[in-house]
Protein backbone atom coordinates (compact mmCIF):
# COMPACT_ATOMS: atom_id res chain seq x y z
CA UNK A 1 0.00 0.00 0.00
CA UNK A 2 1.47 3.31 -1.06
CA UNK A 3 1.35 6.55 0.86
CA UNK A 4 -1.03 7.88 -1.76
CA UNK A 5 -3.47 5.07 -1.00
CA UNK A 6 -3.39 5.86 2.69
CA UNK A 7 -4.05 9.58 2.30
CA UNK A 8 -7.82 9.44 2.07
CA UNK A 9 -10.43 11.21 4.21
CA UNK A 10 -11.66 7.94 5.71
CA UNK A 11 -8.18 7.20 7.05
CA UNK A 12 -7.73 10.57 8.76
CA UNK A 13 -6.60 10.21 12.38
CA UNK A 14 -5.14 13.59 13.17
CA UNK A 15 -5.54 17.04 11.65
CA UNK A 16 -5.90 20.71 12.33
CA UNK A 17 -9.16 21.58 14.06
CA UNK A 18 -11.42 23.92 12.09
CA UNK A 19 -11.45 26.17 15.15
CA UNK A 20 -7.85 27.11 14.34
CA UNK A 21 -7.92 29.83 11.70
CA UNK A 22 -5.81 29.72 8.57
CA UNK A 23 -3.69 32.61 9.91
CA UNK A 24 -0.12 31.51 10.32
CA UNK A 25 0.87 31.98 13.94
CA UNK A 26 3.48 34.64 14.65
CA UNK A 27 5.22 32.56 17.31
CA UNK A 28 8.82 31.50 16.92
CA UNK A 29 9.37 28.00 15.51
CA UNK A 30 8.83 25.41 18.23
CA UNK A 31 7.06 27.72 20.67
CA UNK A 32 4.80 26.04 23.25
CA UNK A 33 2.07 28.65 22.67
CA UNK A 34 1.10 26.97 19.41
CA UNK A 35 0.42 23.61 21.01
CA UNK A 36 -1.64 25.15 23.81
CA UNK A 37 -3.65 27.24 21.31
CA UNK A 38 -4.32 24.08 19.36
CA UNK A 39 -5.49 22.16 22.42
CA UNK A 40 -7.84 24.93 23.52
CA UNK A 41 -9.29 25.10 20.01
CA UNK A 42 -9.69 21.31 19.87
CA UNK A 43 -11.50 21.21 23.21
CA UNK A 44 -13.83 24.03 22.18
CA UNK A 45 -14.62 22.14 18.98
CA UNK A 46 -15.12 18.82 20.75
CA UNK A 47 -17.37 20.41 23.38
CA UNK A 48 -19.23 22.18 20.58
CA UNK A 49 -19.11 25.53 22.38
CA UNK A 50 -17.79 27.81 19.66
CA UNK A 51 -20.85 30.04 20.07
CA UNK A 52 -20.37 30.24 23.84
CA UNK A 53 -16.61 30.54 24.27
CA UNK A 54 -15.11 33.98 24.84
CA UNK A 55 -11.37 34.39 25.20
CA UNK A 56 -9.44 37.22 26.78
CA UNK A 57 -5.99 37.71 25.28
CA UNK A 58 -3.10 39.12 27.31
CA UNK A 59 -0.25 41.48 26.61
CA UNK A 60 2.83 39.45 25.82
CA UNK A 61 3.62 36.98 23.07
CA UNK A 62 0.01 35.75 23.01
CA UNK A 63 -1.35 39.26 22.41
CA UNK A 64 -2.56 38.10 19.00
CA UNK A 65 -4.17 34.88 20.27
CA UNK A 66 -7.42 36.26 18.85
CA UNK A 67 -6.08 35.81 15.35
CA UNK A 68 -5.81 32.05 15.72
CA UNK A 69 -8.87 30.60 17.46
CA UNK A 70 -12.15 31.26 15.72
CA UNK A 71 -14.26 32.53 18.63
CA UNK A 72 -15.10 35.95 20.08
CA UNK A 73 -12.15 37.57 21.85
CA UNK A 74 -11.23 40.61 23.85
CA UNK A 75 -7.70 41.92 24.12
CA UNK A 76 -6.95 43.13 27.64
CA UNK A 77 -4.51 45.67 29.01
CA UNK A 78 -1.37 44.11 30.49
CA UNK A 79 -2.31 41.93 33.45
CA UNK A 80 -5.99 42.84 33.45
CA UNK A 81 -7.42 39.82 31.65
CA UNK A 82 -9.02 38.33 34.81
CA UNK A 83 -10.85 41.63 35.43
CA UNK A 84 -12.28 41.61 31.90
CA UNK A 85 -13.16 37.95 32.20
CA UNK A 86 -14.89 38.59 35.53
CA UNK A 87 -17.26 41.09 33.94
CA UNK A 88 -17.78 39.09 30.75
CA UNK A 89 -18.75 36.01 32.75
CA UNK A 90 -20.92 37.81 35.28
CA UNK A 91 -22.80 39.62 32.54
CA UNK A 92 -23.12 36.48 30.40
CA UNK A 93 -23.23 33.54 32.84
CA UNK A 94 -24.01 31.00 30.10
CA UNK A 95 -20.66 31.61 28.38
CA UNK A 96 -17.37 29.76 28.70
CA UNK A 97 -15.00 32.58 29.52
CA UNK A 98 -11.26 32.10 29.70
CA UNK A 99 -8.11 34.16 29.93
CA UNK A 100 -4.84 33.24 28.27
CA UNK A 101 -1.90 34.79 30.09
CA UNK A 102 1.83 34.57 30.31
CA UNK A 103 4.00 34.69 33.40
CA UNK A 104 4.59 38.44 33.26
CA UNK A 105 0.95 39.22 32.61
CA UNK A 106 -0.41 36.86 35.25
CA UNK A 107 2.27 36.71 37.93
CA UNK A 108 3.82 40.20 37.81
CA UNK A 109 1.74 43.11 36.57
CA UNK A 110 -1.57 41.29 36.94
CA UNK A 111 -1.00 39.60 40.28
CA UNK A 112 -3.79 41.52 41.98
CA UNK A 113 -6.35 40.82 39.25
CA UNK A 114 -5.35 37.15 39.15
CA UNK A 115 -5.52 36.58 42.89
CA UNK A 116 -8.78 38.45 43.37
CA UNK A 117 -10.56 36.83 40.45
CA UNK A 118 -9.52 33.45 41.87
CA UNK A 119 -10.43 34.49 45.39
CA UNK A 120 -13.90 35.56 44.32
CA UNK A 121 -14.22 32.17 42.71
CA UNK A 122 -15.14 33.64 39.35
CA UNK A 123 -16.46 30.86 37.14
CA UNK A 124 -13.77 31.41 34.55
CA UNK A 125 -10.76 29.48 33.32
CA UNK A 126 -7.27 30.90 33.53
CA UNK A 127 -4.71 29.41 31.13
CA UNK A 128 -1.24 30.31 32.30
CA UNK A 129 1.84 29.90 30.12
CA UNK A 130 4.91 29.77 32.33
CA UNK A 131 8.10 29.85 30.30
CA UNK A 132 10.08 31.75 32.92
CA UNK A 133 10.91 34.64 30.62
CA UNK A 134 9.41 37.67 28.87
CA UNK A 135 9.29 36.56 25.25
CA UNK A 136 7.71 39.47 23.43
CA UNK A 137 9.91 42.22 24.81
CA UNK A 138 13.04 40.23 24.07
CA UNK A 139 13.86 37.81 26.87
CA UNK A 140 13.82 39.74 30.13
CA UNK A 141 13.42 38.28 33.62
CA UNK A 142 9.98 37.03 34.60
CA UNK A 143 8.67 36.50 38.12
CA UNK A 144 9.00 32.78 37.40
CA UNK A 145 12.58 32.92 36.08
CA UNK A 146 14.59 30.21 37.81
CA UNK A 147 17.40 31.00 40.23
CA UNK A 148 20.61 31.38 38.26
CA UNK A 149 18.81 31.50 34.92
CA UNK A 150 20.18 34.13 32.57
CA UNK A 151 17.91 36.68 30.89
CA UNK A 152 18.40 40.11 29.32
CA UNK A 153 17.73 41.83 32.66
CA UNK A 154 19.62 39.33 34.79
CA UNK A 155 22.50 38.64 32.40
CA UNK A 156 24.56 36.99 35.13
CA UNK A 157 21.72 34.78 36.24
CA UNK A 158 18.82 35.45 38.57
CA UNK A 159 20.27 36.40 41.89
CA UNK A 160 17.74 35.99 44.67
CA UNK A 161 19.34 38.73 46.76
CA UNK A 162 18.85 41.16 43.93
CA UNK A 163 15.78 39.78 42.18
CA UNK A 164 13.92 37.75 44.75
CA UNK A 165 12.72 34.20 44.19
CA UNK A 166 10.92 32.42 41.38
CA UNK A 167 7.22 32.75 42.08
CA UNK A 168 5.18 29.56 42.28
CA UNK A 169 1.98 31.45 41.80
CA UNK A 170 -0.18 28.41 41.02
CA UNK A 171 0.58 27.03 44.48
CA UNK A 172 -0.57 30.34 45.90
CA UNK A 173 -3.76 30.25 43.83
CA UNK A 174 -4.43 26.70 44.98
CA UNK A 175 -4.57 28.01 48.55
CA UNK A 176 -7.48 30.30 47.75
CA UNK A 177 -10.99 29.17 48.61
CA UNK A 178 -12.33 30.40 45.29
CA UNK A 179 -10.34 28.04 43.08
CA UNK A 180 -11.75 24.59 42.40
CA UNK A 181 -9.04 23.20 40.15
CA UNK A 182 -5.40 24.21 39.87
CA UNK A 183 -3.17 22.02 37.77
CA UNK A 184 0.29 22.19 36.24
CA UNK A 185 0.75 20.63 32.84
CA UNK A 186 3.23 20.61 29.98
CA UNK A 187 2.96 20.06 26.24
CA UNK A 188 6.34 18.74 25.09
CA UNK A 189 5.38 15.08 24.56
CA UNK A 190 2.41 13.23 23.18
CA UNK A 191 1.50 11.82 26.60
CA UNK A 192 1.77 15.18 28.33
CA UNK A 193 -0.29 16.79 25.56
CA UNK A 194 -3.06 14.25 26.06
CA UNK A 195 -3.05 14.99 29.81
CA UNK A 196 -3.00 18.75 29.22
CA UNK A 197 -5.99 18.51 26.91
CA UNK A 198 -7.96 16.62 29.55
CA UNK A 199 -7.12 19.37 32.05
CA UNK A 200 -8.37 22.04 29.63
CA UNK A 201 -11.64 20.22 29.15
CA UNK A 202 -12.11 19.71 32.86
CA UNK A 203 -11.46 23.40 33.50
CA UNK A 204 -14.10 24.44 30.96
CA UNK A 205 -16.59 21.99 32.45
CA UNK A 206 -15.92 23.36 35.95
CA UNK A 207 -16.58 26.91 34.77
CA UNK A 208 -20.02 26.15 33.37
CA UNK A 209 -20.88 23.99 36.38
CA UNK A 210 -20.23 27.03 38.58
CA UNK A 211 -17.60 25.35 40.71
CA UNK A 212 -15.24 28.32 40.90
CA UNK A 213 -12.04 29.33 39.18
CA UNK A 214 -9.92 26.78 37.32
CA UNK A 215 -6.27 27.49 36.66
CA UNK A 216 -4.28 25.45 34.15
CA UNK A 217 -0.59 26.28 34.19
CA UNK A 218 1.49 25.07 31.28
CA UNK A 219 5.17 24.82 32.06
CA UNK A 220 6.48 25.90 28.69
CA UNK A 221 9.55 26.68 26.67
CA UNK A 222 10.73 29.88 25.06
CA UNK A 223 13.50 28.59 22.87
CA UNK A 224 14.29 32.04 21.44
CA UNK A 225 14.50 33.58 24.88
CA UNK A 226 16.37 30.62 26.29
CA UNK A 227 18.69 30.63 23.27
CA UNK A 228 18.35 26.91 22.58
CA UNK A 229 16.82 24.77 19.87
CA UNK A 230 13.18 23.77 20.45
CA UNK A 231 14.22 20.20 21.21
CA UNK A 232 16.98 21.24 23.62
CA UNK A 233 14.52 23.60 25.26
CA UNK A 234 12.19 20.71 25.95
CA UNK A 235 15.02 18.76 27.54
CA UNK A 236 16.13 21.77 29.58
CA UNK A 237 12.56 22.32 30.71
CA UNK A 238 12.24 18.70 31.86
CA UNK A 239 15.52 18.91 33.76
CA UNK A 240 15.25 22.36 35.31
CA UNK A 241 11.73 23.77 35.12
CA UNK A 242 10.01 20.63 36.36
CA UNK A 243 12.21 20.59 39.43
CA UNK A 244 10.88 24.00 40.49
CA UNK A 245 7.44 23.62 38.92
CA UNK A 246 6.48 19.96 39.30
CA UNK A 247 3.62 18.76 37.13
CA UNK A 248 0.30 17.50 38.43
CA UNK A 249 -2.87 18.66 40.11
CA UNK A 250 -2.23 21.19 42.87
CA UNK A 251 -5.88 21.27 43.78
CA UNK A 252 -8.97 19.48 42.66
CA UNK A 253 -11.99 19.97 44.87
CA UNK A 254 -13.52 16.88 43.25
CA UNK A 255 -10.73 14.81 44.72
CA UNK A 256 -9.73 15.03 48.35
CA UNK A 257 -6.08 14.23 47.87
CA UNK A 258 -3.63 16.55 46.19
CA UNK A 259 -0.60 15.65 44.19
CA UNK A 260 2.60 17.47 43.45
CA UNK A 261 2.50 19.44 46.69
Amino acid at each position, binding site marked *: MTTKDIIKPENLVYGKTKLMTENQMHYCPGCSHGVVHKLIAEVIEEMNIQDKAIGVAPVGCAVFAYNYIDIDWQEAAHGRAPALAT*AIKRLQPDKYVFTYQGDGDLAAIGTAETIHACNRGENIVIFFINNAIYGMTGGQMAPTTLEGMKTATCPFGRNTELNGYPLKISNLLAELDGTCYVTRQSVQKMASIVRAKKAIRKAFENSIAGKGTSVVEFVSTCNSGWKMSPHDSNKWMEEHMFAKYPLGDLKDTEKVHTEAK
Partner: protein
Amino acid sequence: MEDFKLMKGNEAIAHAAVRCGADGYFGYPITPQSEVMETLMELKPWETTGMVVLQAESEVAAINMVYGGAGCGKKVMTSSSSPGMSLKQEGISYIASAELPCLIVNVMRGGPGLGTIQPSQADYFQAVKGGGHGDYRLIVLAPSTVQEMADFVGLGFDLAFKYQNPAMILADGIVGQMMEKVVLPPFKPRRTEEEVRQECPWGTTGKLPNRKRNIITSLALEAEVMENINLKLQAKYREIEKNEVRFEAHQCEDADYVLVAFGSIARICEKAMEMAREEGYKVGVLRPITLFPFPTNPIKELSQKVKGFLTVEMSAGQMVEDVRLTVNGTVPVEFYGRMGGIVPSAEEILAALKEKLIK
Protein backbone atom coordinates in the same frame (compact mmCIF):
# COMPACT_ATOMS: atom_id res chain seq x y z
CA MET B 1 -47.95 64.56 40.23
CA GLU B 2 -44.22 64.24 40.12
CA ASP B 3 -42.67 62.04 42.74
CA PHE B 4 -39.97 64.07 44.46
CA LYS B 5 -37.34 62.32 46.52
CA LEU B 6 -34.73 63.89 48.77
CA MET B 7 -31.29 62.38 48.31
CA LYS B 8 -27.57 62.94 47.76
CA GLY B 9 -26.19 63.34 44.26
CA ASN B 10 -24.24 60.10 44.65
CA GLU B 11 -27.39 58.25 45.64
CA ALA B 12 -29.24 59.71 42.67
CA ILE B 13 -26.58 58.26 40.36
CA ALA B 14 -27.16 54.80 41.79
CA HIS B 15 -30.95 54.97 41.54
CA ALA B 16 -30.77 56.34 38.01
CA ALA B 17 -28.39 53.57 36.96
CA VAL B 18 -30.82 50.85 37.99
CA ARG B 19 -33.76 52.72 36.46
CA CYS B 20 -32.14 53.31 33.09
CA GLY B 21 -31.52 49.60 32.60
CA ALA B 22 -27.81 49.44 33.32
CA ASP B 23 -26.34 45.92 33.13
CA GLY B 24 -23.40 46.35 35.45
CA TYR B 25 -21.59 48.56 37.92
CA PHE B 26 -17.98 47.91 38.96
CA GLY B 27 -16.36 50.16 41.53
CA TYR B 28 -13.96 50.63 44.38
CA PRO B 29 -14.75 52.75 47.43
CA ILE B 30 -13.27 56.24 47.65
CA THR B 31 -14.51 59.39 49.35
CA PRO B 32 -16.52 61.42 48.35
CA GLN B 33 -18.38 59.02 46.06
CA SER B 34 -18.70 55.79 48.02
CA GLU B 35 -22.47 56.26 48.36
CA VAL B 36 -22.85 55.28 44.70
CA MET B 37 -21.86 51.66 45.32
CA GLU B 38 -23.30 51.62 48.85
CA THR B 39 -26.69 52.63 47.49
CA LEU B 40 -26.50 50.06 44.71
CA MET B 41 -25.68 47.33 47.20
CA GLU B 42 -28.70 48.34 49.26
CA LEU B 43 -30.93 48.44 46.19
CA LYS B 44 -29.85 44.88 45.25
CA PRO B 45 -30.76 45.34 41.58
CA TRP B 46 -29.54 41.82 40.76
CA GLU B 47 -32.73 40.62 42.39
CA THR B 48 -34.96 42.92 40.34
CA THR B 49 -33.51 44.05 37.02
CA GLY B 50 -30.64 41.55 36.95
CA MET B 51 -28.02 44.32 37.07
CA VAL B 52 -24.60 43.11 38.26
CA VAL B 53 -22.95 45.14 41.03
CA LEU B 54 -19.44 44.23 42.04
CA GLN B 55 -16.86 45.71 44.37
CA ALA B 56 -13.54 45.27 42.61
CA GLU B 57 -10.11 44.92 44.22
CA SER B 58 -8.96 48.28 42.84
CA GLU B 59 -9.93 51.09 40.51
CA VAL B 60 -7.67 49.46 37.94
CA ALA B 61 -9.64 46.23 38.10
CA ALA B 62 -12.95 48.09 38.14
CA ILE B 63 -12.27 49.99 34.91
CA ASN B 64 -11.04 46.80 33.25
CA MET B 65 -14.24 45.05 34.31
CA VAL B 66 -16.03 47.91 32.60
CA TYR B 67 -13.82 47.30 29.55
CA GLY B 68 -14.80 43.62 29.54
CA GLY B 69 -18.48 44.34 30.08
CA ALA B 70 -18.58 47.09 27.47
CA GLY B 71 -16.93 44.72 25.01
CA CYS B 72 -19.96 42.44 25.36
CA GLY B 73 -22.21 45.35 24.35
CA LYS B 74 -23.49 45.69 27.88
CA LYS B 75 -24.49 48.94 29.58
CA VAL B 76 -21.78 49.16 32.22
CA MET B 77 -20.42 51.88 34.45
CA THR B 78 -17.99 52.74 37.20
CA SER B 79 -17.55 55.63 39.57
CA SER B 80 -14.64 57.01 41.51
CA SER B 81 -12.98 60.17 42.74
CA SER B 82 -9.83 61.92 41.60
CA PRO B 83 -6.98 59.64 42.84
CA GLY B 84 -9.02 56.65 41.73
CA MET B 85 -9.65 58.25 38.35
CA SER B 86 -5.90 58.55 37.84
CA LEU B 87 -5.68 54.79 38.25
CA LYS B 88 -8.45 54.26 35.71
CA GLN B 89 -6.78 56.25 32.95
CA GLU B 90 -5.05 53.28 31.31
CA GLY B 91 -8.32 51.41 31.02
CA ILE B 92 -10.16 54.46 29.73
CA SER B 93 -7.59 54.89 26.97
CA TYR B 94 -8.13 51.25 25.91
CA ILE B 95 -11.91 51.65 25.99
CA ALA B 96 -11.75 54.83 23.93
CA SER B 97 -9.43 53.20 21.41
CA ALA B 98 -11.57 50.07 21.14
CA GLU B 99 -14.59 52.39 20.67
CA LEU B 100 -16.73 50.95 23.42
CA PRO B 101 -19.61 52.69 25.17
CA CYS B 102 -19.57 53.02 28.94
CA LEU B 103 -20.26 55.52 31.68
CA ILE B 104 -17.61 56.76 34.09
CA VAL B 105 -18.44 59.01 37.03
CA ASN B 106 -15.80 61.18 38.68
CA VAL B 107 -16.86 62.98 41.85
CA MET B 108 -13.82 65.22 42.08
CA ARG B 109 -11.87 65.94 45.23
CA GLY B 110 -8.88 68.20 45.86
CA GLY B 111 -5.47 67.13 44.59
CA PRO B 112 -2.80 66.63 43.48
CA GLY B 113 -1.69 63.44 45.18
CA LEU B 114 -3.85 61.99 47.87
CA GLY B 115 -4.96 65.59 48.38
CA THR B 116 -8.11 66.13 50.35
CA ILE B 117 -11.61 64.75 50.44
CA GLN B 118 -13.08 68.23 49.98
CA PRO B 119 -14.60 69.19 46.61
CA SER B 120 -12.56 70.30 43.64
CA GLN B 121 -12.73 70.73 39.87
CA ALA B 122 -9.07 70.18 39.20
CA ASP B 123 -9.58 67.07 37.04
CA TYR B 124 -10.90 69.15 34.14
CA PHE B 125 -7.73 68.64 32.11
CA GLN B 126 -7.70 64.92 32.87
CA ALA B 127 -11.32 64.50 31.83
CA VAL B 128 -11.47 66.84 28.85
CA LYS B 129 -8.00 66.67 27.32
CA GLY B 130 -7.48 62.92 27.43
CA GLY B 131 -6.07 61.84 30.76
CA GLY B 132 -4.59 58.59 29.55
CA HIS B 133 -2.18 58.01 26.70
CA GLY B 134 -2.92 58.69 23.06
CA ASP B 135 -5.32 60.99 21.20
CA TYR B 136 -8.80 60.37 22.50
CA ARG B 137 -11.75 62.22 23.95
CA LEU B 138 -14.49 61.43 26.38
CA ILE B 139 -17.97 62.91 26.21
CA VAL B 140 -17.92 64.90 29.45
CA LEU B 141 -21.09 66.00 31.22
CA ALA B 142 -20.87 68.40 34.19
CA PRO B 143 -23.93 68.30 36.47
CA SER B 144 -24.68 71.18 38.82
CA THR B 145 -27.69 69.72 40.64
CA VAL B 146 -28.73 66.41 42.11
CA GLN B 147 -31.43 66.32 39.42
CA GLU B 148 -28.74 66.48 36.76
CA MET B 149 -26.76 63.75 38.53
CA ALA B 150 -29.81 61.54 38.01
CA ASP B 151 -30.60 62.73 34.49
CA PHE B 152 -27.05 62.51 33.15
CA VAL B 153 -26.80 58.77 33.84
CA GLY B 154 -29.34 58.00 31.14
CA LEU B 155 -28.05 60.78 28.91
CA GLY B 156 -24.47 59.63 29.37
CA PHE B 157 -25.34 56.06 28.38
CA ASP B 158 -27.36 57.29 25.39
CA LEU B 159 -24.48 59.40 24.12
CA ALA B 160 -21.96 56.64 24.84
CA PHE B 161 -23.92 54.13 22.77
CA LYS B 162 -24.75 56.66 20.04
CA TYR B 163 -21.05 57.34 19.45
CA GLN B 164 -19.53 54.10 20.80
CA ASN B 165 -17.43 56.21 23.09
CA PRO B 166 -16.92 56.39 26.85
CA ALA B 167 -18.94 59.14 28.50
CA MET B 168 -18.06 60.76 31.80
CA ILE B 169 -20.06 62.54 34.43
CA LEU B 170 -17.59 65.03 35.88
CA ALA B 171 -19.10 66.09 39.16
CA ASP B 172 -17.51 67.82 42.09
CA GLY B 173 -17.72 66.69 45.68
CA ILE B 174 -20.44 69.26 46.38
CA VAL B 175 -22.92 67.82 43.87
CA GLY B 176 -22.03 64.32 45.01
CA GLN B 177 -22.61 64.99 48.70
CA MET B 178 -25.39 67.58 48.82
CA MET B 179 -29.02 66.55 49.26
CA GLU B 180 -31.69 68.01 47.02
CA LYS B 181 -35.07 66.99 45.80
CA VAL B 182 -34.96 64.96 42.66
CA VAL B 183 -37.38 63.30 40.28
CA LEU B 184 -35.90 59.94 39.39
CA PRO B 185 -36.17 58.74 35.79
CA PRO B 186 -38.83 56.11 35.05
CA PHE B 187 -37.86 52.43 35.05
CA LYS B 188 -36.61 51.15 31.72
CA PRO B 189 -36.09 47.40 31.32
CA ARG B 190 -32.62 46.04 30.63
CA ARG B 191 -32.11 44.98 27.04
CA THR B 192 -32.58 41.31 26.28
CA GLU B 193 -29.67 39.23 24.96
CA GLU B 194 -31.21 39.47 21.50
CA GLU B 195 -31.53 43.24 21.73
CA VAL B 196 -27.89 43.51 22.82
CA ARG B 197 -26.83 41.40 19.83
CA GLN B 198 -28.84 43.64 17.52
CA GLU B 199 -27.74 46.95 18.98
CA CYS B 200 -24.10 45.89 19.38
CA PRO B 201 -23.30 43.44 16.55
CA TRP B 202 -19.62 43.99 17.38
CA GLY B 203 -19.95 42.66 20.94
CA THR B 204 -18.35 39.48 22.26
CA THR B 205 -21.66 37.73 22.75
CA GLY B 206 -20.49 34.39 21.39
CA LYS B 207 -19.63 33.66 17.75
CA LEU B 208 -22.72 32.42 16.00
CA PRO B 209 -22.37 30.56 12.69
CA ASN B 210 -23.87 33.51 10.79
CA ARG B 211 -21.13 35.98 11.59
CA LYS B 212 -17.35 36.27 11.83
CA ARG B 213 -15.72 36.27 15.22
CA ASN B 214 -15.80 39.58 17.06
CA ILE B 215 -12.56 40.93 18.40
CA ILE B 216 -12.35 43.80 20.85
CA THR B 217 -8.87 45.23 20.69
CA SER B 218 -6.96 48.49 20.68
CA LEU B 219 -3.88 47.00 19.05
CA ALA B 220 -2.76 47.66 15.47
CA LEU B 221 0.95 47.27 14.87
CA GLU B 222 0.97 48.65 11.32
CA ALA B 223 1.41 52.43 11.43
CA GLU B 224 -0.99 53.03 8.54
CA VAL B 225 -3.73 51.00 10.20
CA MET B 226 -3.23 52.80 13.50
CA GLU B 227 -3.31 56.18 11.81
CA ASN B 228 -6.58 55.24 10.13
CA ILE B 229 -8.02 54.25 13.50
CA ASN B 230 -6.97 57.65 14.80
CA LEU B 231 -8.49 59.46 11.82
CA LYS B 232 -11.76 57.63 12.39
CA LEU B 233 -11.71 58.61 16.07
CA GLN B 234 -11.00 62.24 15.23
CA ALA B 235 -13.85 62.31 12.71
CA LYS B 236 -16.14 60.98 15.42
CA TYR B 237 -15.00 63.66 17.86
CA ARG B 238 -15.71 66.38 15.27
CA GLU B 239 -19.19 64.88 14.83
CA ILE B 240 -19.73 64.98 18.60
CA GLU B 241 -18.58 68.61 18.66
CA LYS B 242 -21.09 69.42 15.93
CA ASN B 243 -24.08 67.67 17.52
CA GLU B 244 -23.78 67.42 21.25
CA VAL B 245 -22.86 70.80 22.74
CA ARG B 246 -24.97 71.56 25.77
CA PHE B 247 -24.85 74.71 27.90
CA GLU B 248 -27.04 77.04 29.92
CA ALA B 249 -26.96 80.84 29.68
CA HIS B 250 -28.36 83.08 32.41
CA GLN B 251 -29.00 86.73 31.67
CA CYS B 252 -26.33 86.84 28.99
CA GLU B 253 -28.54 88.79 26.54
CA ASP B 254 -27.67 92.22 27.91
CA ALA B 255 -24.54 91.28 29.83
CA ASP B 256 -21.35 93.34 29.81
CA TYR B 257 -19.51 90.68 31.78
CA VAL B 258 -20.02 86.95 31.71
CA LEU B 259 -19.04 84.47 34.40
CA VAL B 260 -18.11 81.09 32.93
CA ALA B 261 -18.33 78.18 35.35
CA PHE B 262 -19.39 74.54 35.42
CA GLY B 263 -20.87 72.25 38.03
CA SER B 264 -21.82 73.54 41.45
CA ILE B 265 -19.66 76.66 41.04
CA ALA B 266 -22.01 77.86 38.29
CA ARG B 267 -24.73 78.04 40.93
CA ILE B 268 -22.57 80.21 43.17
CA CYS B 269 -21.81 82.34 40.13
CA GLU B 270 -25.56 82.83 39.66
CA LYS B 271 -25.72 84.20 43.17
CA ALA B 272 -22.76 86.50 42.40
CA MET B 273 -24.56 87.58 39.22
CA GLU B 274 -27.67 88.55 41.19
CA MET B 275 -25.59 90.54 43.67
CA ALA B 276 -23.79 92.30 40.82
CA ARG B 277 -27.07 93.15 39.10
CA GLU B 278 -28.38 94.62 42.36
CA GLU B 279 -25.35 96.91 42.29
CA GLY B 280 -26.13 97.86 38.70
CA TYR B 281 -23.59 95.73 36.83
CA LYS B 282 -24.89 93.79 33.86
CA VAL B 283 -23.50 90.33 34.54
CA GLY B 284 -24.50 86.98 33.04
CA VAL B 285 -23.50 83.37 33.63
CA LEU B 286 -22.62 80.81 31.02
CA ARG B 287 -22.53 77.23 32.27
CA PRO B 288 -21.06 74.61 29.96
CA ILE B 289 -22.98 71.38 30.54
CA THR B 290 -20.82 69.43 28.13
CA LEU B 291 -17.14 70.12 28.79
CA PHE B 292 -16.31 68.02 25.78
CA PRO B 293 -17.70 69.05 23.39
CA PHE B 294 -16.95 72.53 24.72
CA PRO B 295 -19.53 75.26 23.95
CA THR B 296 -17.17 77.28 21.78
CA ASN B 297 -19.81 78.88 19.54
CA PRO B 298 -21.93 80.45 22.29
CA ILE B 299 -18.81 81.82 23.97
CA LYS B 300 -17.48 83.11 20.64
CA GLU B 301 -20.80 84.86 19.98
CA LEU B 302 -20.80 86.43 23.42
CA SER B 303 -17.23 87.62 22.92
CA GLN B 304 -18.51 89.86 20.11
CA LYS B 305 -20.60 91.93 22.50
CA VAL B 306 -19.31 91.63 26.08
CA LYS B 307 -16.47 93.52 27.75
CA GLY B 308 -14.92 90.47 29.34
CA PHE B 309 -15.22 87.01 30.86
CA LEU B 310 -14.38 85.78 34.31
CA THR B 311 -13.91 82.02 34.51
CA VAL B 312 -14.47 80.66 37.98
CA GLU B 313 -13.26 77.21 38.96
CA MET B 314 -12.24 75.16 41.96
CA SER B 315 -8.77 74.75 40.50
CA ALA B 316 -5.71 76.78 39.54
CA GLY B 317 -7.43 77.55 36.23
CA GLN B 318 -8.05 74.77 33.74
CA MET B 319 -11.27 75.43 31.81
CA VAL B 320 -10.12 79.04 31.52
CA GLU B 321 -7.64 77.84 28.89
CA ASP B 322 -10.50 76.66 26.68
CA VAL B 323 -12.37 79.93 27.21
CA ARG B 324 -9.23 81.86 26.23
CA LEU B 325 -8.69 79.68 23.15
CA THR B 326 -12.28 80.33 22.14
CA VAL B 327 -12.24 84.07 22.75
CA ASN B 328 -8.80 84.27 21.16
CA GLY B 329 -7.81 87.61 22.63
CA THR B 330 -10.74 89.70 21.42
CA VAL B 331 -11.77 90.61 25.00
CA PRO B 332 -10.12 89.95 28.37
CA VAL B 333 -10.63 86.51 29.92
CA GLU B 334 -9.78 86.57 33.61
CA PHE B 335 -9.73 83.77 36.15
CA TYR B 336 -10.69 83.33 39.74
CA GLY B 337 -10.36 80.08 41.59
CA ARG B 338 -9.79 78.38 44.91
CA MET B 339 -7.90 75.17 45.40
CA GLY B 340 -7.35 72.36 47.85
CA GLY B 341 -11.04 71.82 48.55
CA ILE B 342 -12.09 75.41 49.25
CA VAL B 343 -15.33 76.54 47.65
CA PRO B 344 -15.33 80.20 46.57
CA SER B 345 -18.17 82.36 47.91
CA ALA B 346 -20.42 84.60 45.82
CA GLU B 347 -18.88 87.62 47.57
CA GLU B 348 -15.37 86.53 46.60
CA ILE B 349 -16.45 86.01 43.01
CA LEU B 350 -18.08 89.42 42.81
CA ALA B 351 -15.01 91.04 44.34
CA ALA B 352 -12.78 89.26 41.82
CA LEU B 353 -15.05 90.37 38.97
CA LYS B 354 -14.77 93.98 40.10
CA GLU B 355 -11.05 93.83 40.69
CA LYS B 356 -10.07 92.02 37.50
CA LEU B 357 -12.61 93.25 34.95
CA ILE B 358 -14.92 96.07 36.01
CA LYS B 359 -12.18 98.04 37.80
